[in-house]
């Protein structure tokens, strides 16, 4: 009895030791691998919208920005605008890059953010099946929505809503409001479906259901080119369809944000409004889609090529006649007087100096 027990116990112990070694070595090896690939850099966490993220724009921004500011490691957390703002309010993001002016104002007023800058814009579109069962092609957005509603009531089509409190969802709610309908009451209608997820998932749902939905142009082109969807653009113009992207730094004076990387946030903001950052917007997507997915706002202002459009952006996204009123600015250092052509490198020497400063005590010690 004793012999049998001890013999099997040893072999089992050997096998258990083997497993632990395999797991342990595997964990250490992968840890070493991961760490060797991740140089120690300062983290900058940006909570942002799914539309910017899914198109791949932010991946390109990260590469270009980090090439220039090698001490920063930018992390993008992709969420709907509503959640992105919540994340920053909790102090879990250093800055936000979003597209919902009304919510941005609340964020500033709550004392969570400073130094808002409008960086880019594009237009929302209404897409639907190519046979257009409700017949909305060429109508105004408001007419299109009421047509979809009556077709929905007849059971010939459906409307797919993002339903996730994103910037796109806010826009959709304001469009329903413009024809006197409250989106809250529509949720119970059988022709009104809430996807509750990102733009691609919503487009795919609309595609499966042969329904209509509101989308930003970038997400639509991406999915159309990937052959994920065969929905077509049906309504695509008008002031009410304007989509404006802004960036806001977390306010380091807020209790939750005292550890936030304010300097890093300001560097990214300056980069986005610099000539180089604006060109990034202007060129992204041209190769794949034949048009930019996001249009650079400061280039528009500089060229003054379309005063009417600039006025629309003012009407939609300005707060008391300014993109960021004086009381919401903090250590902005000329951010609001800066010429577009001013080279962004002007701030880089400060960053280098600060870096050197931060080394000095450790050298002494």
């Amino acid at each position, binding site marked *: *009895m*004793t012999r049998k*027990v001890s013999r*099997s*116990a040893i*072999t*089992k*112990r*050997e*096998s*258990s030791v*083997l*497993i*632990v070694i*395999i*797991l*342990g070595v*595997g*964990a250490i*090896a*992968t*840890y070493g*691998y*991961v760490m060797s*690939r*991740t140089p120690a850099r300062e983290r900058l*966490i940006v909570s942002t919208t*799914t539309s910017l993220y*899914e198109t791949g724009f932010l*991946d390109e921004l*990260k590469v270009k920005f980090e090439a220039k500011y090698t001490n920063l*490691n930018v*992390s*993008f*957390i*992709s969420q709907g605008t509503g959640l992105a703002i919540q994340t920053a309010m*909790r*102090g*879990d993001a250093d800055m936000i890059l979003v597209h919902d002016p009304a919510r941005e104002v609340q964020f500033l007023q709550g004392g969570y953010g400073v130094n808002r800058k409008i960086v880019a814009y594009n237009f929302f579109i209404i897409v639907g099946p190519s046979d257009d069962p409700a017949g909305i092609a060429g109508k105004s957005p408001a007419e299109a929505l009421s047509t979809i509603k009556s077709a929905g009531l007849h059971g010939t089509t459906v409307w797919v809503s993002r339903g996730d409190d994103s910037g796109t969802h806010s826009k959709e709610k304001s469009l329903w409001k413009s024809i006197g309908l409250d989106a809250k009451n529509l949720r119970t209608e059988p022709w009104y479906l809430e996807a509750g*997820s*990102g733009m*691609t*998932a919503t487009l*795919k749902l609309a595609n499966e259901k042969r329904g209509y939905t509101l989308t930003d142009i970038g997400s639509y082109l*991406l*999915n159309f080119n*990937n052959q*994920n969807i065969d929905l077509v653009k049906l309504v695509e113009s008008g002031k009410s369809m304007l989509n404006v992207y802004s960036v806001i730094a977390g306010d380091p004076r807020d*209790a*939750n*944000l005292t*550890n*936030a990387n304010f300097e890093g946030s300001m560097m990214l903001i300056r980069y986005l409004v610099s000539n180089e950052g604006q060109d990034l917007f202007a060129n992204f997507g041209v190769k794949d889609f034949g048009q930019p997915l996001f249009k650079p706002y400061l280039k528009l202002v500089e060229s003054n090529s379309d005063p009417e459009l600039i006025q629309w952006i003012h009407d939609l996204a300005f707060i008391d006649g300014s993109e960021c009123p004086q009381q919401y600015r903090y250590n902005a250092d000329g951010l609001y007087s800066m010429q577009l052509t001013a080279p962004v490198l002007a701030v880089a020497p400060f960053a280098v100096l600060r870096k050197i400063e931060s080394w000095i005590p450790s050298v002494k010690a």
Partner: protein
Amino acid sequence: MIRAVGLILSGDPEVYRIASLSLYTAGTGTLLSCTWSIPISAVLALRNFYGKRVLKGLFNAAIGIPTVALGLYLYLVLSRSGPLGSFQFLYTPNAIIIGQSILVSPIVVSFSASALESADPELRDLARTLGASDLQTYGVIIKEASWGVILAVMAAFNRAFGELGIAMMLGGNIRYVTRLLTTAIALETARGEIALSIALSFILLAITVSVSVAVNLARKPTS
């Protein structure tokens, strides 16, 4: 499907990075959990105390805890505005490791406790008669029931390796930092990159299956 296989064979460094980070978080999380879960299971299996059955019931019930619920609670704890916010763990691999180690603890505790309980009761008496201390007795029984304990650890590893909720909520699915196989699959599906999702899911399955096969091979000599 062919594209998916091609993507695996092309050896994209980012895919390997994602897979190795998945192995790292699940492996470390499981091992970390073992440091407290196996002792707890030994006490639970081999000692009699008031409330033991209730405690065992609680651990059994916690096996099925939804990952999103646990992820949410830990998010609130680890958030900068939460009680452990000053450690700045949120959106780092460490946050995922902590979350997964807590997630799999009930699995290790319950499974290995029942393995220890079913170990030959004579063995315990024998060890005691031979003058073993409490701790030594535990050691003997854990060795005897080692296969059951290993199975418990494997089940825990597989659960950690394949879960999505914690990795998404605590890691944030940040490219190059906290993107794991499961969060990458969720993202690429949301992005409409189905071929890439399928490729990643194959890797996920292949690793899960080969870990189980490796463990079974290790067992063979004893039978």
